[in-house]
């Protein structure tokens, strides 16, 4: 086949480029705080109700206390961020205590993430359900919905929506976090203005009772396994159990460790500002609003609003009903935005954490199989979405139940993180920031602040273990399942790694600045076989069977496809010859060994595989290039592309034959470059008849050859192409092409095989 394209350039060798860049943009402390608060502030919508159901009227003080305690947890995170750029719980615990506890910590973090989705979605559903009822009442309609049932349907729908969005891998811009927090702030400010006005107008407002042991009314349900035991009478235990019921107000702090890397310079100072904004905001919006809710909503009706405490607060404000209803609508919109965002973050977060541990070989590769169309790790997302939906269904829309279970993951991931940072205080000495209250005794630093925080978190975690039956059963079961999965995965991956190593051939890379017959130990006229997919090697099999090694050597090449762009640099060996090439060439070697024929192996990095194949065939002065039929391209198109690549080669161009093999039919042969044509049988007859007629003429006789006839015919054709006859000739050419199309056309291209 000959093609002609008006190109003059030459095939050159160049350096190659990084295709992927991390566009790191540093964010302000406001943006960083908004990202963290999107997680952390969402708890304000449900924490008040959950805590009051568990410990009684002093609940807001406990929530406020926990939010103040969050300043201490903030310091733990700051200390860890100062040592690790990305100091998430898994990294910190793995580095300080070891991989076993790290697996436990990551299990509890996964429990945290898995439950963040359901509790946020169910809470949003509760707010929406209650609002619909209130609107129906305001409009004097008899229609009502059961908020629990509505919350279940709503939560399942929200979870499915974000599951699908994550499967598609289309994330929202991070700027949306800031926008949501701006809207939330508007809501908080209105509440903080309207609530004191209400208190002043009504007068006689009373603060909730202080959280002293005598005021804390823990039910048997909130005491769990401690109910009726000696421990339930110990004030300290009661306080710890109460804190345990309020601690989930701090959920979302882990995000602080994730945003640290992107906080603008000076990093640590800005992280401190970010953390302070987060803690202060949480104290105000979660702590103070919970307090105001208890002060404004009458005791008699407050239990009606446990699932939508802020909604209840607004509906009990002083003012016109329609204005309150309007603000209630606004609150629900904000709630749905922030809580639905938390559902999305939970899926993104759990996917990220599990991918991270999978990179460490602690999760089976099965989970990481990319989605065929979108490339996302759909199996992790499917599993997590199913778990979240099952949790929603099991909860029957009960936020309190979900809150109880949720606390397990939150408190244990905090406790293990703090323990990790505490251990690192003795293992490392490169802390850029140290939590306060450190004293020195005999030259040894005693981290009082860090120690107290860690101890508090552990005591709360232990108190939760005995007092929160649901959390313990759910959390421990889930953690055991996850931990077992991690252990099994680790062993399977380790064994696979060993098998993989023993199964595959080992290769040494021999870099060649120029590929020539001498450097490759392949004689000119060799057969070049291009391989790409080790499931599709029939063409190599055929070439091995047919090639006589006494006449031709075999070179098997693969193209390592590259992209071009800016930022040139030399390619590393693992970029040129990765695991896939190792596997591919291992299959080549196996086939060659089975056939008992030796092959030379060659990797050609290139942007265009067609250029690479032709360039290599030319450099090696190959007699034939063998390729397999492509599933993406018809053999005619494949031959055309290779032909175009041949035309792009700089002169002198090496002619060679192209063989495109099919697994179930004869190969197609195409000659690249100028070559004697193989004539159609009727044309051979015509040529012979013309030759016979001409030899009868005087002066020609036996001296005339068939080639002379063809030569004269071609000269005449060339002349007539520039004459008025051109149109008629082109019509004839077109008709000749059509005449020879059809089933027989391909076999007509065949050449005798080697």
């Amino acid at each position, binding site marked *: 086949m000959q093609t002609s394209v008006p190109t003059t350039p030459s095939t050159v060798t160049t350096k190659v480029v990084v295709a992927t860049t991390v566009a790191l943009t540093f964010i302000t402390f406001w943006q960083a705080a908004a*990202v963290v608060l999107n997680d952390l502030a969402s708890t304000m919508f449900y924490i008040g109700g959950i805590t009051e159901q568990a410990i009684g009227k002093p609940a807001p003080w406990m929530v406020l206390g926990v939010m103040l305690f969050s300043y201490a947890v903030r310091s733990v995170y700051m200390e860890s961020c100062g040592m690790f750029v990305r100091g998430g719980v898994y990294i910190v615990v793995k580095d300080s205590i070891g991989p076993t506890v790290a697996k436990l910590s990551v299990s509890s973090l996964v429990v945290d993430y898995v439950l963040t989705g359901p509790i946020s979605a169910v809470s949003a559903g509760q707010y929406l359900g209650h609002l619909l009822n209130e609107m129906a009442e305001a409009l004097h309609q008899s229609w009502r919905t059961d908020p629990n049932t509505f919350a279940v349907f709503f939560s399942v729908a929200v979870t499915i929506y974000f599951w699908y969005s994550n499967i598609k891998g289309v994330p929202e811009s991070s700027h949306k976090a800031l926008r949501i927090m701006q809207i939330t702030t508007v809501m908080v400010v209105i509440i903080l203005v309207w609530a004191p006005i209400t208190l002043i107008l009504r007068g006689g407002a009373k603060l909730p009772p202080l959280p002293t042991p005598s005021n804390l009314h823990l039910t048997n349900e909130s005491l769990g396994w401690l109910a009726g035991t000696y421990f339930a009478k110990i004030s300290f235990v009661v306080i710890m159990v109460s804190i345990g019921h309020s601690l989930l107000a701090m959920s979302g702090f882990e995000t602080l460790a994730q945003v640290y890397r992107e906080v603008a310079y000076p990093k640590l100072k800005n992280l401190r500002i970010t953390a302070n904004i987060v803690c202060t905001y949480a104290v105000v919006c979660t702590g103070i609003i919970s307090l105001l809710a208890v002060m404004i909503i009458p005791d008699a009706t407050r239990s009606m609003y446990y699932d939508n405490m802020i909604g209840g607060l607004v509906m009990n404000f002083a003012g016109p009903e329609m204005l309150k209803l309007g603000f209630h609508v606004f609150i629900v919109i904000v709630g749905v935005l922030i809580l639905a965002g938390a559902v999305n973050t939970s899926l993104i977060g759990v996917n990220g954490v599990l991918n991270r541990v999978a990179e460490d070989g602690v999760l089976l590769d099965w989970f990481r199989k990319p989605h065929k169309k979108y490339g996302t790790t759909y199996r992790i997302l499917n599993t997590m979405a199913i778990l979240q939906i099952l949790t929603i269904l099991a909860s029957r829309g009960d936020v309190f139940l979900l809150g109880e279970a949720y606390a397990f993951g939150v408190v244990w991931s905090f406790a293990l993180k703090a323990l990790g940072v505490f251990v690192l205080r003795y293992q490392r000495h490169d802390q850029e920031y140290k939590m306060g209250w450190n004293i020195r005794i005999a030259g040894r630093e005693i981290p009082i602040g860090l120690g107290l925080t860690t101890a508090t978190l552990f005591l709360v975690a232990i108190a939760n273990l005995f007092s929160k039956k649901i959390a313990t059963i759910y959390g421990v079961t889930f953690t055991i399942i996850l931990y077992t999965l991690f252990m099994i995965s680790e062993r399977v991956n380790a064994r696979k790694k060993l098998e993989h190593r023993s199964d595959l051939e080992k*290769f040494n890379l021999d870099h060649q600045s120029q590929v020539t017959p001498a450097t490759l130990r392949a004689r000119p006229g060799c057969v070049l076989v291009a391989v790409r997919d080790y499931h599709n090697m029939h063409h190599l099999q055929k070439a091995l069977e047919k090639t006589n090694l006494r006449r031709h050597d075999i070179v098997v090449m693969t193209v390592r496809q590259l992209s071009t762009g800016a930022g040139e640099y030399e390619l590393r060996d693992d970029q040129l010859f990765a695991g896939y090439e190792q596997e591919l060439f291992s299959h080549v070697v196996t086939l060659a060994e089975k056939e008992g024929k030796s092959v030379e192996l060659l990797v050609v990095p290139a942007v265009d595989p067609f250029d690479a194949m032709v360039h290599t065939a030319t450099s090696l002065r190959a007699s034939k290039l063998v390729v397999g039929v492509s599933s993406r391209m018809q053999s005619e198109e494949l031959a055309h592309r290779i032909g175009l690549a041949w035309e792009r080669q700089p002169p002198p161009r090496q002619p060679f034959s192209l063989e495109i093999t099919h697994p179930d039919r004869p190969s197609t042969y195409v000659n690249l470059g100028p070559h004697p044509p193989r004539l159609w049988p009727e044309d051979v007859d015509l040529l012979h008849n013309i030759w016979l007629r001409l030899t009868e003429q005087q002066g020609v006789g036996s001296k005339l050859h068939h080639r002379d006839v063809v030569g004269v015919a071609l000269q005449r054709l060339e002349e007539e192409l520039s004459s008025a006859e051109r149109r008629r000739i082109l019509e004839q050419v077109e008709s000749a092409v059509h005449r020879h199309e059809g089933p027989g056309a391909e076999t007509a291209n065949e050449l005798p095989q080697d």
Partner: protein
Amino acid sequence: MKLAVHVSAPVSVPEAHNPELEVNVVYTRLPGAAKSLDVASGLARDLGGRVTVHVAQVIPYPLALKSPQVPVQFAEQQLLAMAGEQPVETSIKIYLCRDLTETIRQVLKPDSMVIVGSRKRWWPTREKKLAAALRRDGHRVILSYAD
């Protein structure tokens, strides 16, 4: 014993007639990307230029920028397969970023010719918003619909 694999120096596509002329293709999602690449390739071939594909892969918080939801290799393989079938020189640049519009605005040269792959929707999609932002920046923008 280890077998020897010869590794040649990289082989590049020969330079086009007018390599200064660059047709930029911007993707926000991989499915449907082939259509806009075909449009860009056709344009670049007719004008004797080259194509640069910009893929801004937005990484949501709390994921690290280096840990995208869609593995980079997956995106690279898909784009390389698409680019490999184009008749003109094609460069692929993938950016792992937090904000799509900001990243694309930063990487495009002034007065660029840009093709934005999109889907036909009656509402303002992110691609339409991006195209509008790029037009405001003075680029020549074409929206290419995959459906």
